[in-house]
């Protein structure tokens, strides 16, 4: 690593450490005032920031990015504003335990190109709510829009009494600088939202990290589903910002009994079913043949543009490309994750066969992330949910918006979705301010009567079996 990068990282973390020290003195009311001011600033600039992100990245739709900015500011704020993150957060007289929140320290927020400004807003709000300074490290294709967002937030935070340098942002980036920051001894946490390579680098840095996993979201349309509502939900999710949310549906699995109605409903709403030749042509542009992963060329592009790239025409009102598939696997490139309005389409005879296919999809690169079902049969919903390896099983709602939380359910509103051990993450939670504090537990003496009433001689007597001890322990209470 060059000394320039190390010196730059040293300077950034020196400033952040001073900000962390000052931040720790602020009380809950002062912190909340800062968080509110930042929310308002983000919300005020929701449109200009969305347009800037759209122009700079060339991905998605600016109107959808406005909504993402609203989620990243207003809904995140609504979700965290009453959360206790400062001082005493819990007192339990029975157990004698008092929980006290402590800030973590400087956080490095890695920002993806797919949701740049909204993720900046989200990460800044949750970090400040926990009194942590944050350093924003944007994707190289989203430097300007992320920098502008961070700057707007920073000014608002300062006006509201936040410490200097509580928000910093990189105006240029490189692998070396990111590594120097991630592995810096003064950094408390990496909040890594991005591709698998980046997340792995964060976990390998030696600094604690909260990362995300890849998605490959199966959506199961079970025979009892409300088909018009289900199709509307799937389209609202999969076409939102041209499919750039990692929790968006990747493969639609339909029971044979209802396939005709589902197909008609999809076509009525602008979904286009590809022929085998068109599917083959699409595979060539959507998937990088060397890696087997989605091609960045199609990420966040419209259905019509992608069809053009693949060399075929679709009706101009097409919003989604449906790619009929038979099986799941590496030899079926479209059965993996593609952050674009392309949806693999499967038909299976009966619930069990459909469920098996969903499991196969789930385990093709999406374990721990999200699974989706449309059904009115609670037993089927539970069977599906028990077998999916997912942090979130979203039911009868758009998967993208459902997984992010706040609109269709009461999940914490988040642009960083934990994917648990399956996704190589520490948690399956929707990451929020509560994940960015250390909880200190003050433990007052509360003697365990069973432990003290049970004669210690029992343990010393080798003739007494474990079963006897287990039976007798607690009897005296």
């Amino acid at each position, binding site marked *: 690593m060059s000394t320039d990068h190390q010196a730059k990282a040293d300077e950034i973390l020196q*400033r952040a*450490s*001073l*900000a*962390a*020290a*000052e931040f*720790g*003195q602020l009380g809950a009311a002062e912190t909340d005032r800062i968080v509110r001011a930042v929310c308002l600033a983000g919300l005020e600039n929701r449109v200009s920031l969305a347009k800037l992100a759209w122009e700079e990245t060339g991905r998605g739709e600016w109107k959808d990015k406005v909504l993402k900015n609203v989620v990243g500011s207003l809904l995140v704020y609504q979700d965290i504003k009453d959360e206790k993150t400062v001082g005493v957060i819990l007192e339990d007289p029975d157990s004698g335990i008092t929980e006290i929140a402590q800030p973590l*320290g400087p956080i490095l927020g890695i920002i993806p190109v797919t949701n740049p400004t909204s993720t900046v807003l989200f990460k800044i709000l949750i970090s400040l709510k926990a009194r942590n300074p944050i350093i924003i490290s944007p994707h190289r294709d989203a430097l300007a829009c992320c920098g502008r967002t961070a700057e707007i937030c920073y000014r608002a935070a300062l006006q509201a009494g936040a*410490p*200097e*340098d509580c928000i910093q942002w990189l105006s240029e980036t490189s692998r070396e600088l990111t590594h120097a920051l991630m592995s810096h001894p*003064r950094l408390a946490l990496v909040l890594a939202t991005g591709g698998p390579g980046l997340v792995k680098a964060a976990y390998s840095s030696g600094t604690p990290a909260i990362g995300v996993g890849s998605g490959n979201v199966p959506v199961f349309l079970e025979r009892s589903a409300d088909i018009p509502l289900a199709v509307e939900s799937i389209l609202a999710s999969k076409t939102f910002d041209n499919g750039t949310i990692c929790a968006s549906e990747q493969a639609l699995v339909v029971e044979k009994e209802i396939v005709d109605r589902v197909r008609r409903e999809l076509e009525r709403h602008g979904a286009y079913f590809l022929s085998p030749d068109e599917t083959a042509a699409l595979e060539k542009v959507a998937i990088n043949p060397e890696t087997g992963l989605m091609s960045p060329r199609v990420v966040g592009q419209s259905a019509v543009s992608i069809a053009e790239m693949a060399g075929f025409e679709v009706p101009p009102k097409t919003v989604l490309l449906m790619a009929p598939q038979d099986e799941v696997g590496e030899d079926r490139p479209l059965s993996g994750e593609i952050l674009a309005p392309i949806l693999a389409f499967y038909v299976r005879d009966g619930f069990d066969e459909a469920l098996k296919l969903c499991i196969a999809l789930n385990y093709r690169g999406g374990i721990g992330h999200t699974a989706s079902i449309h059904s009115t049969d609670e037993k089927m919903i539970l069977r599906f949910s028990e077998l999916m390896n997912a942090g979130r099983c979203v039911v009868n709602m758009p998967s993208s918006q459902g997984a992010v939380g706040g609109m269709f359910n009461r999940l914490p509103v988040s642009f960083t979705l934990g994917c648990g051990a399956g996704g190589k993450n520490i948690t399956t939670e929707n990451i929020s301010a509560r994940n960015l504090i250390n909880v200190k537990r003050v433990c007052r003496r509360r003697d365990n009567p069973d432990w003290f009433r049970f004669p210690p001689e029992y343990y010393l007597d080798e003739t007494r079996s474990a079963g006897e001890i287990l039976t007798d322990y607690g009897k005296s209470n």
Partner: protein
Amino acid sequence: MVKIAFDDELQVLKCLFSGRLDIVGSSRDEEAIIGFIDQGAPGRNNPPPAEFAVLFDLAEAEYISSAFLRLCLSLARHDRIREFSIVNSSPSARKVFSVAGLDRVLKIL
């Protein structure tokens, strides 16, 4: 407002801080201290000698900002200051220096 006095016998510049050392207070106090180092007490041309010590007394300080921490760092590295010390810090002020990692580079008594 910081109270500044120079102890000629010990060759120590003593600075007694009070109130909130936020960005406004720190900037104001920094200006006063640097002015004293360069020119001596206001109205008198008696700057401290070429080399001297600085003592920050935080007995009456209520809040410490990152701007104040930077002031401490800049004085600790000042080429005319042979020794920089901080005294009478409250437990919460002491924690601020620890969180910033300055307890390892500054002399906090």
